[in-house]
């Protein structure tokens, strides 16, 4: 077996724990093997929210947690030649790169090389209405839709170009999640772009690590059934990959959480549909022949991965300005709480009818039925179980008219005086919605550009 390459993950989404990357980098440094660190922080809607922010303030529009996540590990990664890859550019990769440069100078690292990858933003270059639709929001009215952002999920190739040019930090906008793991592996091992079996190993590595702690005990622990050590300090994952395609999932040392067959199975199937065809821009991953083996404490080997040729198309996700969402909540508790909650729910819906507000609305009885319920409240209306000690009543209303939506949400506030006996704890808010639609575009139509410059150069 050849010397493994280590791939660490420092964050699985834009709201992740800010202190997670430190033990990962400490472990990578201690092990002294060639390594890379990646962050996946760009969810489907994150880029649209970033675009809205950029419109308000042109120098913004990148991952807001960029600095707090990077600062504690940047110097160590630079000194130990551990490149950092991240799709933290969001809507504004050049601004994110400039921020990394300023951070590097502040930390006394003027020679740190920053690789900027652009080209994922296709909002100006491609006419969306000419493209086949891949996935669509049912609620999207294309006649009135106002485009906010359109970004292609680019693959690992431009990221490898940045690494080959010596980048210590690679800043990209929208990439496929697995590409962030595939790129350092291809760069290090020199795997060929049509070596589908090896690229499948890279894609599985990225898929298992991209959500950070989800493979090391996060959204896994279920007290009394699936317990994990120290859930307040779950260690983030580190994969060990060999040139021949060996893959072991492990985690940062001296942390909580765990890696076992159960955590790896849950994450392997996460957001996966057909197990024979998990499509990425670089390879189509097939896990139907996959076998898992516990090879040590917090170490699981992944065998039997297969890959087939990458698709000719890339996915483009477009975000549109949507309607408005108004939400309001109040609580009732103690004797007769359920009857008071039901009456409150009916009165809220009656108020919207009497005022003829142009909104679509639903009511939840939190503590009785909400997240599993339908818009018509089939579960709470049909509830015949025991009396709950307290219930929180939630109204959600959506519509194109902001004032009408806000008016609906405020009906919850009015319950503080007009509601049932013992109504309290009102909260309400009205927020804009983003709608998304995905398209397929030929990959040739999404050229990418890579520039690598030192922090000193960029700041000059």
């Amino acid at each position, binding site marked *: 077996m050849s010397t493994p390459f280590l791939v660490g993950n420092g964050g699985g989404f834009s709201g992740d724990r800010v202190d997670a990357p430190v033990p990962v980098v400490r472990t990578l440094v201690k092990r002294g093997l060639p390594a890379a660190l990646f962050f996946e922080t760009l969810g489907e809607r994150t880029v649209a929210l970033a675009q809205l922010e950029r419109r308000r303030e042109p120098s913004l529009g990148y991952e807001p947690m960029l600095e707090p996540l990077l600062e504690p590990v940047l110097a160590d990664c630079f000194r130990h030649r551990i490149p950092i890859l991240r799709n933290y550019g969001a809507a504004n990769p050049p601004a994110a790169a400039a921020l990394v440069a300023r951070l590097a100078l502040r930390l006394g690292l003027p020679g740190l090389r920053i690789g900027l990858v652009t080209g994922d933003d296709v909002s100006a270059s491609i006419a969306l209405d000419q493209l086949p639709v891949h*996935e669509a929001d049912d*609620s*999207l009215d294309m006649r009135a839709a106002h485009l906010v952002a359109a970004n292609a999920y680019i693959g690992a190739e431009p990221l490898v170009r940045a690494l080959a040019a010596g980048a210590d930090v690679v800043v990209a906008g929208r990439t496929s999640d697995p590409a962030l793991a595939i790129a350092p592996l291809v760069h290090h091992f020199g795997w060929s772009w049509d070596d589908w079996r090896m690229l499948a190993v890279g894609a599985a590595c990225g898929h298992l690590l991209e959500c950070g702690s989800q493979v090391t005990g996060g959204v896994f622990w279920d007290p009394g059934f699936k317990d994990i050590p120290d859930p307040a300090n779950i260690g983030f994952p580190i994969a060990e990959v060999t040139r021949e395609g060996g893959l072991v999932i492990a985690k940062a040392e001296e942390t909580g959480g765990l890696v076992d067959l*159960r955590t790896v199975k849950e994450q392997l*199937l996460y957001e996966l549909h057909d197990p024979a065809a998990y499509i990425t821009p670089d390879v189509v991953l097939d896990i139907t022949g996959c076998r898992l083996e516990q090879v040590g404490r917090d170490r699981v080997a992944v065998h039997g991965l297969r890959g087939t040729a990458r698709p000719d198309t890339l996915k483009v996700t477009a975000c549109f300005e949507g309607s408005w969402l108004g939400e309001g909540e109040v609580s009732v508790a103690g004797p007769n709480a359920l009857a008071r909650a039901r009456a409150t729910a009916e009165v809220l819906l009656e108020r919207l009818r009497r005022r003829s507000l142009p909104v679509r609305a639903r009511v939840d009885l939190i503590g009785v039925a*909400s997240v599993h319920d339908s818009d018509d409240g089939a579960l709470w209306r049909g509830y015949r179980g025991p009396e709950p000690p307290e219930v929180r009543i939630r109204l*959600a209303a959506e519509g194109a008219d902001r004032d009408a939506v806000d008016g609906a949400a405020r009906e919850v506030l009015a319950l503080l005086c007009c509601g049932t006996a013992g109504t309290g704890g009102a909260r309400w808010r009205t927020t804009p919605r983003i709608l998304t639609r995905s398209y397929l575009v030929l990959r040739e139509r999404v050229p990418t550009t890579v520039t690598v410059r030192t922090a000193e150069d960029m700041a000059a």
Partner: protein
Amino acid sequence: MMEVPLHAVAHSRAGDKGNRLNMSLIPYDPAHYALLAEQVTAARVLELFRHRGATRCVRHDLPLIHAFNFVVDDVLEGGVNGSLNLDGHGKTHSFRLLGLAVRVP
């Protein structure tokens, strides 16, 4: 044979893509794989989500890792961007699945 909730013998995680939900189902004991394959059919799982407007459920079997993957269409009331639900991603649905009753020896 006694009847227990799936939660007593298996675990699950849910994920979304648009208006489509997927849920893994993994027995704690691989010996239970066959009885889950027999009892937790795609039709039963679809029935669990009928009130949400689900139109289709496909079960993918992964016998080498003793796991199932259920893919349910049109269950997320428009998905994370369109839904009025508190949980637009449908992450909590794995535990609706785990409430399903199964008979075990």
